[in-house]
C-alpha cells in the first residue's frame, strides 16, 4: 500500500512537473503520501462550552499589558462602565480573527484530511486553514497577513499542535480592548477528551507589542451532532447592519 502511494506520488510529480514541496494539500499525490496514522481526528461540528471556566472569553486574568495596549484596555473598561461599546469592530463586519473566532457562540465545522485541517466557523463563515503536510510557515516576505493567520500543525502524543503567525495589525482584538498585533504568535494544543465528545485547546499566546510573556488559557468545545447545529452561509452585510440597532448606536466608542 505504501509502495503504491509512493509510486502514485512519483508519477504525479513526473506528470505534473511538481516537486513534493510544491504539491497542494488537496493534490492526490500529497493526500496519499505515506504518513503515520494521526493520533486524533477532530473532524466534526463543535460548539464552545459556555459552562467551562472562562466561557468564551480569554480573560481575566490578563497578562501585564504594554503601555499602548493598556491605554486601549483602560478605555474599553471605561466604556463598559458607562454602558458603551469600545471599538466594536466585529459589529462593523471586521473579522473576529484568531483566537476570538474560535469562541464565538456559533458552531465550527472542522474537517481533518491527511494534509490539512479546515475550520469553518458558522460566524461569518470565517475560514482557518491548518497545513499538516509538513510544510513550514509561509516565507515572512511572502505571507499575506490575515485575521486568522498562517497556521501549520503537527501531531505530538495525543495532541494536534497548531502554530500560527502572520496576523494583521489592525482591527483585531482579544476580548475587548486588547489589541492583537502583527507580532502575535499562537500555539494551540488540541486534544479530544471524554471519549471524543469534547475537545480542549490549550492556548499559549505571545505578542510583545501588546503584553509581556506568555498568555496561557484553555478552552473547551462540545461535539454537536444535531442537524440544526450545522453551519450555514452567514455574512455580515452593510444593509443588514442598518437593521441591527446595537451596531448603529451613537453610544459606541469608535
Amino acid at each position, binding site marked *: 500500500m505504501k509502495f503504491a502511494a509512493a509510486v502514485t506520488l512519483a508519477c504525479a510529480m513526473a506528470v505534473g512537473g511538481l516537486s513534493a514541496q510544491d504539491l497542494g494539500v488537496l493534490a492526490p499525490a500529497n493526500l496519499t503520501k505515506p504518513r503515520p496514522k494521526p493520533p486524533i481526528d477532530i473532524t466534526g461540528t463543535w*460548539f464552545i462550552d459556555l459552562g467551562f471556566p472562562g466561557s468564551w472569553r480569554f480573560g481575566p486574568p490578563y497578562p501585564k499589558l504594554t503601555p499602548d495596549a493598556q491605554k486601549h484596555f483602560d478605555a474599553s473598561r471605561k466604556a463598559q462602565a458607562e454602558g458603551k461599546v469600545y471599538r466594536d469592530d466585529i459589529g462593523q463586519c471586521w473579522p473576529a480573527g484568531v483566537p476570538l473566532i474560535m469562541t464565538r457562540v456559533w458552531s465550527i465545522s472542522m474537517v481533518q484530511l491527511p494534509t490539512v485541517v479546515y475550520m469553518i466557523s458558522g*460566524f461569518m463563515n470565517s475560514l482557518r486553514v491548518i497545513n499538516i503536510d509538513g510544510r513550514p510557515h509561509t516565507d515572512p516576505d511572502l505571507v499575506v497577513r490575515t485575521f486568522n493567520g498562517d497556521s501549520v500543525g503537527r501531531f505530538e502524543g495525543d495532541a494536534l499542535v497548531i502554530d500560527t503567525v502572520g496576523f494583521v495589525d489592525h482591527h483585531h482584538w482579544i476580548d475587548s480592548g486588547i489589541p492583537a498585533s502583527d507580532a502575535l504568535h499562537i500555539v494551540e494544543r488540541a486534544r479530544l477528551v471524554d471519549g471524543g465528545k469534547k475537545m480542549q485547546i490549550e492556548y499559549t499566546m505571545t505578542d510583545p507589542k501588546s503584553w509581556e510573556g506568555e498568555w496561557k488559557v484553555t478552552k473547551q468545545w462540545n461535539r454537536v451532532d444535531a442537524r*440544526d447545529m450545522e453551519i450555514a452561509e452567514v455574512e*455580515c452585510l452593510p444593509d443588514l447592519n442598518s437593521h441591527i*440597532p446595537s451596531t*448603529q448606536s451613537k453610544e459606541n466608542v469608535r
Partner: protein
Amino acid sequence: MRFERFEMFKVFVRFLGFVVLAIGISAPALAHHSAAGIDRSKTVTLIGTVKQFGWQNPHSWMEVEVPNESGVVTTWKVEMTSPAFLIRAGWKSTTVKPGDKVTVKVFPLRDGDPGGLFQSVTLADGSTLTERAAAPRPTP
C-alpha cells in the same frame, strides 16, 4: 418495569442536556457583537404594525411602525437572534409579515433611538413567541 424506568431516566437526561444546551446557547446568542448599548434594565412595549421582517443570518430583524397618541408613526428597529435559534423557539419565516398587527417587547437602546433587542412578540391571534426554545427536542 425496570426497563421503563431506565427509558424514563434516559429521557430525563436528554431533557436535562437540552435545557443546559438551550440556556447555554440562547443567553449569549446575540453577543457575537457587543450589545452594551442596549439597556437590559428596561422593557419597552411596542404596539403597532410590522413594516418588514428579515429572516437572515447572523441576525433576524423586524421593523415595527408604532403610532403615538397623536397618530405620529415612529419606525422601531428590532434586533433578533439567528433563524436557527428562532426555529428552535417555534418560528417560521412566515410567522410575521408586513401589515401584521403585533405587540413587541424590547430592551431599548440606551441612546434613545427607536430600536432595541427583541424579547417577545404577541400576534393578532393572541399567541406569544420569544427566542427561547419552548420544548425539548429529541436527541437525534
